[in-house]
């Protein structure tokens, strides 16, 4: 069971890493607007349509 003295600190480090990644993700703004992205598919379609017409 002595292995716990190594494993628990390692898990603690991993958790610290997780927190760091999460904070970075929030700061990058990817959670700012959770509703808009559902509608993005329509945007892209319009662009494709326009390209199609141009060709």
């Amino acid at each position, binding site marked *: *069971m002595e292995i*716990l*003295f190594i494993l*628990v*600190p390692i*898990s*603690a480090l991993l*958790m610290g890493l*997780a*927190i760091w990644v*999460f*904070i970075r993700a*929030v*700061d990058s*703004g990817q*959670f*700012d607007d959770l*509703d808009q992205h559902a509608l993005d598919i329509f945007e892209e379609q319009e662009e494709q349509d326009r390209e199609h017409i141009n060709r």
Partner: protein
Amino acid sequence: MTTSVFQVNDMHCSACESRIRSALKNLPGVQGIKINPIRRELFIDHDADVIQTLDLFGRIENTGFTPVVGQSGSGIQNRAALKRLGVAGIAMMQVMMQALALYAGDFQGMEPAYVRLFEFTSLLFCVPVVLYSAQPFFRGATRSLRGIRRWQDWFVGLSMDVPVAIAIGIAFSASVVATLSGKGMVYYDSVVMFTFLLLLARFVDQRLSARLIASDYRSMLPERVLRISGSADELVALRDLAPGDLVRVRGGERVPADGIVQAGEAHLDESLLTGESDAVVRYGGDTALAGTINCDQAFTLRVVRKPEDSTLAGIETMATQAELDKPDFVRRTDRIAGVFIFGMLLLAVLTFVIWLNLDPSRALATTLAVLVVSCPCALALATPAVVTAALNFLRRRGVILTHGATLEKAAALGALAIDKTGTLTTGALRIDSVDLIGDLSSNAVLAIAAGLERDSRHPVASAFSHANPMRFAETQVRSTGVEGNADGHHYCIGTAEFCDIPDSAEAADRRVLWLTIDGRLLAKFRLVEELRNDTITTLKRIEKLGITTVLLSGDSENNCVPFAPYLHLEAALDPAGKLAALKKLRDTSGPVMMVGDGINDIPVLANADVAAVVMEAPNLVKSKADITLLTNHLRPILDVLQISRMARRVIKQNLFWAIAYNLTMIPLAAVGLIPPWAAALGMSLSSLLVTLNASRLGRGVA
């Protein structure tokens, strides 16, 4: 006078509000303060020469809040809230895992070295939760305590954050002492779980109200507009539009400002304003309103008002006013919650003292459980969330309540009095009778009329669609009539004014249509309105709610006959007669809602328990109204009746839950039957429950 708007996101209870209010109200130059607790907005009317927005900003900051100038500075606030929640969540996973090991160790025995290891790692993860994630609670609590000036404030001025912060503080410090000394219980699991779940409930509440509230009018208008200048079109920003500008509105686009349709016809979806999704046709010379969608071809619009003065913006302002006006039941629960907090703090102290004498080892755990379980968060959330949900649901259906208290009154109605026959009909017309003035047969007259109206999409035209039309080379459709030439004659059909008919009682009646040939009168059509096809079912559903519907009409008995089979009729009434009929109705059926729109209805509207008027009514009439209807349909009235009753029911459920929860849990906690972690779980879940219950409102209403 200027109005400054601040977004104050850390103002989340009535104690915070009164604190800001008292700090500002006596300042020179401040004339009025309004607070919208749901959107967390602060409106200050002030004299800009005496005190400026920046000074006000400083004053608010001095009281310990963080204001943002302008509305909705919630983006950055949202990120911070999310980070706090995330850190607490990740830490909670780790701490709970270790707590499980420690609990198991309690039963099976565990070597002290491992106990110390788990305790120290838990402490490591608890530190960021207490110092970072739980910050809003500590800041809220200090602010609340600093605001106490008089002894009475202890009873009403304490915010919800005080017991929360005390509980987190005590539990954490006791655990740290236990960890360092190696003696006593640790409560790291309770601390992180309590913080996480409370933050979650707050986060959900914030997001719900943000979603429920339709954001401001600007987000519903296009950002860029095609302005016609000279020969070319140019893209300009919405705010650069000025009255007089010509704008091209393309198919699928929203009309950017109130204006006049220049030429041709526009098919507009006015659902944003009226809740009615069928497109309406506006002709050259007609008004098109900002926010409506162009469903057909592009048309040109001459801007009449700037976007910020549009009808849409006016509606938003009215809707916001209603949110500011707290219903009585919200005020009552606020006061109860305030008194409750002080009482609970006393009870916690009492519990501690008693348990210290009974069993000192359990005194701390029991006190913590009492503190946590008793937080009246659910009680405070129970009503405001429901009121917001109801107001927003009605707003989407084209109904605006001018006072929040109207919701309470509407739930108790027993009768409905309608003045407008337009509320019951489609606006589509059919021919009731034809008066022939010239020497043509009625078929010939109908053929001419049908030929003229063939290209018109005006509701009047549908009345002639069954006749065999005469051929016209060209017709010109105007908003008040149609003219055209055939066989060397000039024909006109339309209102008396359009056809140059001299004034008479009949000429003013818009249900009479005139047909002329070369300026000579040919025939007169009397039209009647057709019942809307949902009118009968809607009336039946209103009746099923136990509400008596009466048509109080000033019209002659004859004109009201089509409605007779479906509701009670009181025709040919003068204003005094209407008033008497209303009083009689109230005596027999209970509180009355009156739907009307004319100046002559003012005495009746003022005497009704709930007064509803349509948007087009004169301002004087609207000032008497509790409800403004954006369409003159019966449907929204049914919505008001249903939603107000539902809201009353959901509020009762929420209050029942909150009170029952506190009444059962507090004694259990005080006698030591509830461990701190269970208290944390129960209290935060019940806050979440009432919020979600409120968001349920309006579901199942077709």
